[in-house]
């Protein structure tokens, strides 16, 4: 037919039952796993911790590296404050408390490092084994502060308590462009031991409450031939911390039930999950996975089990022997774009790993296992465990839903 002009109007009856595409499910069992441990690293945590937890976790200090560029407009750099026409009215380093009311009157001290380079710590690599208080002994004391809270304003908006350090007198150290070794790192630690853990918001919690340097300045300009200057309005500039990290020291506890896997960011327990049957499951060649639920059962009191868990495919092969003992670094390389995150609920957690399975089915990714850990929003002081042994209904299982021609 060369040309088809059609007018489509009404309906007829036909049997579509056996035609075209179908939906089916596959159950995959015999999922195995084991726990491995690295030094705890809270660089991606949304909170910064101080004090000692009842389980024995210690959080002695936190480090911050302030960004050179402001997040406020007009955008300024710390370097620009060298300009002699700008006068600093005040400069504060501010931390925002994670609770909406003050529960402690502890005093915190602020230190800076004028004589060191800008590589005192790494947000993603520093931990209690490679960075101790002894390594930071040359920190110069800046000042102390206690938590304070503003009264709610007329709009009845509650402000979080803050810890505010005056840094005006050392501000030149942050803006001095003549110093090739310029260092914008500061350290905060409690003046005395805290018997409880308190938390402040980190830069991962968003711009509004990120640790920040707040500078109030005004500019002077010459307006006539007499050389008189006038003062213009005071402007505030905010420079948030680009990197921040609280160091956590885990207690000497060992969890070693072989039927369980353990997870917790404070203990730095992570797990490797293996699905050996994945390579032999019989998915049709053109199957498109609609859902792939990987589910686990929590071993402890289900009322405490609401937490976020994440899973990522491992992209390099690694032997179990290489993951024994306390490792100094995490050797597993994962595919970050295929992360699956979900909230544990009622003692069970389900993760949709269909993208991983689909790409494995296409042959783009190998079945090297899955790395499992708690998400960065979860309290590091909890340790979670899941059944991994073959315990029938409580064993981990994978249900794959797919459609195929």
């Amino acid at each position, binding site marked *: 037919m060369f040309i088809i002009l059609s007018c489509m109007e009404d*309906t007829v009856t036909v049997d579509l039952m056996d035609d075209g595409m179908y939906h089916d499910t596959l159950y995959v069992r015999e999922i195995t796993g084991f726990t491995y441990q690295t030094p705890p690293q809270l660089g991606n945590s949304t909170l910064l911790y101080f004090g000692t937890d009842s389980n024995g976790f210690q959080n002695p200090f936190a480090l911050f590296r302030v960004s050179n560029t402001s997040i406020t407009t007009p955008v300024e750099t710390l370097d620009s404050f060298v300009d002699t026409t700008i006068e600093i009215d005040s400069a504060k380093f501010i931390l925002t408390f994670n609770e909406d009311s003050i529960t402690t009157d502890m005093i915190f001290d602020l230190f800076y490092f004028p004589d060191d380079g800008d590589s005192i710590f790494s947000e993603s690599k520093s931990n209690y084994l490679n960075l101790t208080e002894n390594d930071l002994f040359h920190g110069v004391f800046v000042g102390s502060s206690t938590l304070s809270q503003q009264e709610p304003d007329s709009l009845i908006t509650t402000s979080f308590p803050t810890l505010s350090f005056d840094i005006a007198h050392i501000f030149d150290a942050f803006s001095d462009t003549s110093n090739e070794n310029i260092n914008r790192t500061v350290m905060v630690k409690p003046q005395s031991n805290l018997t409880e853990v308190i938390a402040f918001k980190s830069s991962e919690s968003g711009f509004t409450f990120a640790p920040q340097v707040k500078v109030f300045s005004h500019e002077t300009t010459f307006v006539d031939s007499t050389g008189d200057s006038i003062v213009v309005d005071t402007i505030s500039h905010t420079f948030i911390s680009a990197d921040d990290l609280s160091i956590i020291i885990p207690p000497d506890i060992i969890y070693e039930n072989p039927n369980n896997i353990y997870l917790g960011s404070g203990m730095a327990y992570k797990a490797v999950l293996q699905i050996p049957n994945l390579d032999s499951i019989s998915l049709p060649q053109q199957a498109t996975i609609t859902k792939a639920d990987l589910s686990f059962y929590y071993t402890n009191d289900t009322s405490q089990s609401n937490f976020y868990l994440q899973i990522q495919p491992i992209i390099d092969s690694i032997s179990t022997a290489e993951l024994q003992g306390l490792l100094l670094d995490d050797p597993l390389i994962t595919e970050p774009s295929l992360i699956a995150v979900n909230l544990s609920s009622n003692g069970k957690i389900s993760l949709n790993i269909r993208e991983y399975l689909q790409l494995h089915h296409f042959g783009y990714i190998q079945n090297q296992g899955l790395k499992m850990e708690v998400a960065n929003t979860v309290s590091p002081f909890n340790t979670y465990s899941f059944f991994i042994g073959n315990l029938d209904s409580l064993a981990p299982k994978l249900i794959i839903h797919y459609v195929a021609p």
Partner: protein
Amino acid sequence: MTSLCYGQDVYSAYGVGELTFAPNAAVMGIGSSGLMPSFQENISLSNPSTWLGIPFAYLSVNYGGTQIKDRDYDYNNVFSGLNQFQFILPIKGVYAVGIGFQPFSSQLYSLGSDDIYEKFIEGDTLIINKAINGSGGISELIFSLGAKLTEKEQLGLKLEYLFGSNRRQTVFNIEEGEHDLDYIYNQRNIYNGTLINGYFSSHRLGFGSRKLRLSGSVKTVLHSVRINHFSFQPFEDSNGNGFYDVADYPRPSGVDSIPPAAIDTILSNQISPFEYAFGFDLELTEMIHAQGEFSSWSDLTDRETNLTSGLNQRVVAYQHFNMGIIRFARTLPRIWHESFHFRAGIFQRAYELDNQLSSNGQAEDYKINDLGISIGFGIKFGVTKNQIDFGLNLINRSDSYNSDKLVTNFNIGISIGDLWFVKRRVKK
């Protein structure tokens, strides 16, 4: 599962679609398959063994349409298209050649289920629904040759090169809780193959002064019809726009995420038509002829391989029979109505369908029966016997499920004649 169809009849979704029976208006007017002369006296546009008597070269174009009205299910579908393009060149009354273009089959359907299928999996309820859409068809490029065997016998040969493609989309809807997503599976078939059709005509016999013309033809496969089938990766239409784009899953872009290329399968010997036909044309008076034709078409493929583009059913055979009467226009009309051809007939066509995927795994046949009447007329005009034709079929179609379906076909054709291979006088 009860379903809905938009487009042509549901038969359009079977196999390669609706087969074309009457590509031009003259054939439609008598209700035949084109073997016996209906265009003009002793001339059929579809039978090259009748072209030797054509006085002029003809360029013929036909446009047709179909209306399908189902009173049982209260639907009324209409579609239309250009049906046939043909050029015929007689050479000194000894040979004739032709080249033409016409549809072999066509598809246009949209089948949507109004029934649902529920699945219960690990405490979840999945509600599944399905729709199937398709369009396309196979066309024929036809090369024809007619030749005189004796003064009263003629031969004809047709080579029909089949080509074309169709697309099919299966939409699989899965509803789970508040989530309602379509999973779309696209397929494409590209067809090619060649049929050969031999014709024989004779007017050696007669009843006294009444001439009797007999014709027969046999059609078979010269180069088996091959289907290049492309099966595309099904995708989740995440943004619900019906197209495969970056918002869908699996993502069609990005490193190591693009679905594998479509699976290309070559299916040989998928359609293997064999047809034989014979008929007569009896001159009752100088202008009035009675005609009859019988043809039997069957698909000789092994039927073990499913056609991958249709529904479960496919047409595997049909028989056509028609009787009709034509009053041809007079060669040199004396009054106005002698420039008209009038055609009328009745016909019956019985289809045999093979259900390829019945629930018990056995092929099950069912039959469709067409009973129709046809009328038509043609107007001859001009020195070169130009002609405008109109044909109409009214068909009652019945099958195992439905007995009250009315199919109306119409066709309009225009044929322009010209004189070739003649030395024209130079105008002074």
